[in-house]
């Protein structure tokens, strides 16, 4: 685990048939997520972002590769570590940052904050903060798709900790029983807050929990490799579109930051060395290598990408700082629909 894993020849040579511009888009997207989250950390440190704030650093390949395997009509739902997936699903990052700072221009007009990002137009169903509570909802979106005879699927993301709660198991049983087009994606970053998977789950290989429900499953060991993520998610999505059958995917990944901004980067539950070793398998570095080896991008590209993304993040900050706070009248809006 101390070295960057050698890429398989098939991946570097045929790139799974993915157009170069898509690969470059994924790189840019991952870079945006990384720099966006770094900005969030800075603004949190300055006291401008309140509450809990869970950053996605290190897990970017999951967002880019998974959402890259679906269309804008498909649904995405996740837990509270939601900034990266929202960005990949096309939610305006300016509005995400505005939300984090409690501004009226935010994704939910300042009602939800970091853990509750939503965007109906982008089919982004949240942003949910009770562990496991959103898994039935994602299953329900897939239910609606099948009910209407559509081909839409739902990608339902969760952390490793969510696989131990009842709503996970009830959802998997129902999705398998009723054949619902939902792809459950466990982002296994090895720790539920400060509790390692082996201290929380009787089954270490979390994807094996699918067996209890006669559900297809797969593990993506190289969760830092956007192509590997894409390849496996795409296969599950294609299967769901043609058969309505669900899948459970486990993506092995690592978060560079603490559980939330309130926590230290390693704390007592993991060592500094472990974090540093994992950072050698960085999604951005791995993607850059793929692009370079396939002669799709050279150093100049990566330098210009940094500059472009820096501008985007600066625009987010400017947009947010110039946005008003919610009007006090908004306190009473959106409690009941007409």
């Amino acid at each position, binding site marked *: 685990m101390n070295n960057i894993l050698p890429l398989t020849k098939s991946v570097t040579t045929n790139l799974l048939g993915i157009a170069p511009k898509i690969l470059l888009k994924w790189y840019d997207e991952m870079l945006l997520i990384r720099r966006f989250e770094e900005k969030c950390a800075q603004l949190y440190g300055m006291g401008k972002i309140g509450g809990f704030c869970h950053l996605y650093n290190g897990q970017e390949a999951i967002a880019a590769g998974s959402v890259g395997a679906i269309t804008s009509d498909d649904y995405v739902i996740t837990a509270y570590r939601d900034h990266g997936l929202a960005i990949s699903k096309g939610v305006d990052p300016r509005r995400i940052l505005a939300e984090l700072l409690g501004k009226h221009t935010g994704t939910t007009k300042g009602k939800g904050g970091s853990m509750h990002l939503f965007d109906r137009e982008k089919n982004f169903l949240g942003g949910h903060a009770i562990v496991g509570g959103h898994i*039935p909802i994602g299953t329900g979106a*897939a*239910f609606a798709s099948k009910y209407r005879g559509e081909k839409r699927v739902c990608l339902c993301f969760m952390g490793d900790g969510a696989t131990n709660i009842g709503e996970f198991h009830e959802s998997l049983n129902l999705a398998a029983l009723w054949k619902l087009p939902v792809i459950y994606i466990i982002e296994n970053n090895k720790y539920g807050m400060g509790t390692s998977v082996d201290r929380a789950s009787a089954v270490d290989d979390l994807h094996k929990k699918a067996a209890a429900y006669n559900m297809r499953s797969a593990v993506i060991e190289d969760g830092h490799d956007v192509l590997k993520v894409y390849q496996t998610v795409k296969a599950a999505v294609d299967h769901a579109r043609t058969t309505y059958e669900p899948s459970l995917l486990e993506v092995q990944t690592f978060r560079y930051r603490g559980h939330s901004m309130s926590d230290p980067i390693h704390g007592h539950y993991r060592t500094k060395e472990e974090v540093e070793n994992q950072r050698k398998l960085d999604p951005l570095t791995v993607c850059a290598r793929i692009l370079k080896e396939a002669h799709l991008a050279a150093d100049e590209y990566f330098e210009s990408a940094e500059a472009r993304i820096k501008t985007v993040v600066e625009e987010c900050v400017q947009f947010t700082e110039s946005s008003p706070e919610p009007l006090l009248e908004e306190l009473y809006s959106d409690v009941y629909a007409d």
Partner: protein
Amino acid sequence: MPVVSIREALNQAMDEEMARDERVFLMGEEVAQYNGAYKVSQGLLTKFGPKRIIDTPIAEAGFSGIGIGAAMVGLRPIVEFMTWNFSLVAFDQIVNNAAKMLSMSGGNFNVPIVFRGPGGAAHSLAATHSQALESLYAHFPGLKVVMPSNPRDAKGLLKTAIRDNNPVVFIESEMMYGEKGEIPEGEYTIPFGVGEVIKEGTDVTIVSWSRILQHIAVKAVGRLAEEGISVELIDPRTIKPMDWELIFNSVKKTNRLVIVEEGWPFSGVGAQISHEVNNHCFDYLDAPVERVTQEDVPLPYAHNLEIASLPNIQKVIRAVRKVMYLDS
């Protein structure tokens, strides 16, 4: 006018609304092949098929959440709890997801869903199966709470609930499914937040709902009439929204109020009604507001303990006499 049972009235409401709107479906334990644990969904599977009348496993959190997710993206589910006691297993879904979704998503996603089923005590089902949970659900902003007490209201209010764009907690009475009454011919709905004066009176106002209204309050009012006491009896029909004006106007006329409910006293619906009446009708009150509730204990199994705990006719008569200062 046709005479039907509450069971038939609820069935008609679902039948008509499902015929009217393809997006409406029913899911829950035993609702399809078994025709409903209390036969409320009798015949609907035959009529609408398994796509829209859906048997679930015993997984309240799972199927409630599926209903919420489906509602977020445009369907209009009816989720049946075999009894409301089992909704507590789905509490996270109802409270954190259904109730809060519209607000938390800044208006992005509303949740047009009906959670329905029987609530309250039956006979000798003991603590876990005998709960009146309306005050619990009325506590949460974002939910509406409906409690019909007769076939006409059951049908009209359920049709309104199914058409409502918000999550509705619709609590029926386990003991009243077979009770019959007249309903209007043809299509009708009953709006939320509009209560009904069941009987006009001049001396005391009683507010009560669901089974306790019909089985206890109505009978107590009859006995009190024999004593020459004229009670105005109000059925709010929906707990949230509550028809405050109807209650205030009645109290301003009678100057006395007794609230009779099946739930526990602490933080009960009656506590809220008492507070609102104190605030809005203080100068009109001739006595402190009285409440008749269940005793503040988990409901026991033994018959004598059960009836001792629940509201009864004698307790209501005592409360009315107390606000009239008839007992020393």
